């Protein structure tokens, strides 16, 4: 696939900096591929969770192919699996997807791509591709691009492959509780939020959000308690804090 080459966005007015595979820093390639495989592996957990929540194999696969953002995917199946409406599921997933937009903002001036290539770039703009790209900053723009594309497509391939594997596994398992899937999903969320809890402020917000959502659960319909905590985050972030 052409889009899988190391430096697909090169041709537009981009002379003298052509990067060949052999020239890409080996560390960048190694890091991209190891991140791709490790993260892709968690697609298994998503595939299983999605089936357990009542989504079909096709729907599960389409979520990984089209949505392609782990937290958002877990959110839609988590909310709808718990009986929430499609709208609250989409809202939660989309609120979690805002950060991909900001990653795009960060990556666009580095990638400088248009047309179909921008479509591909947008689709693989996620935590990991952006993270690896920014991690190569000291090695220069070419290494950043290579890290972005390699990790983006790498995760895309592994994530989709392991999604199908997890979904088929869950279909074969039957009762999700008997295999601990009911605890694996919140544990997956916990693992996603953990690295973001840098200080007391973040930990406080996390604890408060958890309590608010649990407290509201018997009162308002499924999905809404989770969205309510986003308002909490907006209110806290709005008030100036250095």
């Amino acid at each position, binding site marked *: 696939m052409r889009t899988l080459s190391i430096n697909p966005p090169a041709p537009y007015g981009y002379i003298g900096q052509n990067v060949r595979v052999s020239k890409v820093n080996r560390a960048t390639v190694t890091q991209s591929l190891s991140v791709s495989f490790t993260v892709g592996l968690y697609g298994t957990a998503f595939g299983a969770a999605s089936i357990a929540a009542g989504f079909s194999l096709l729907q599960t696969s389409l979520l990984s192919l089209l949505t392609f953002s782990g937290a958002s995917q877990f959110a839609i199946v988590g909310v709808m699996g718990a009986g929430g409406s499609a709208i609250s599921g989409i809202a939660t997933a989309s609120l979690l997807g805002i950060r991909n937009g900001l990653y795009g903002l960060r990556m666009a001036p580095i990638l400088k791509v248009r047309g179909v290539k921008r479509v591909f770039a947008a689709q693989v703009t996620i935590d990991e591709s952006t993270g690896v790209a920014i991690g190569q900053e000291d090695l220069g723009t070419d290494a950043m691009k290579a890290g972005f594309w390699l990790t983006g497509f790498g995760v895309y391939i592994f994530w989709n492959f392991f999604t199908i594997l997890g979904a088929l596994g869950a279909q074969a398992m039957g009762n999700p*509780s008997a295999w601990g899937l009911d605890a*694996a999903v919140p544990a997956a969320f916990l693992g996603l939020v953990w690295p973001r809890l840098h200080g007391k402020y973040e930990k406080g917000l996390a604890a408060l959000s958890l309590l*608010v959502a649990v407290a509201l659960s018997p009162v308002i319909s499924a999905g809404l308690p989770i969205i309510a905590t986003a308002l909490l985050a907006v209110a806290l972030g709005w008030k100036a804090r250095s």
Partner: protein
Amino acid sequence: MEGSLVNALWVGVIGTSVFAFALKYLGHSVPEKFLTNPRVLRINALIPIALLSALVGVQTITDKGKWVIDQRLAGVAVAFIALALKAPYFVVVISAAVTSAVLYRI
């Protein structure tokens, strides 16, 4: 009932996918100066913390709108300990699943 539920799932799948892509594409297409607004950056950092924590709570101790304490809480508690011990993500998820499954079966 059955038919409407299946349709709702499809709405969820398509809707989530459309918005997810639109947000990504928008980021690649708007001027970079938006990135410099500190308030936007701050809120953006806090939203995932709030939503993911809320999801942890709701998925661990509620079921169909009711508070329920069961094997899931034990599983997530083990995951918490694993994270505190800096275990890799995979170990975290598996240890939660195994704990919950064992308790469910006994």
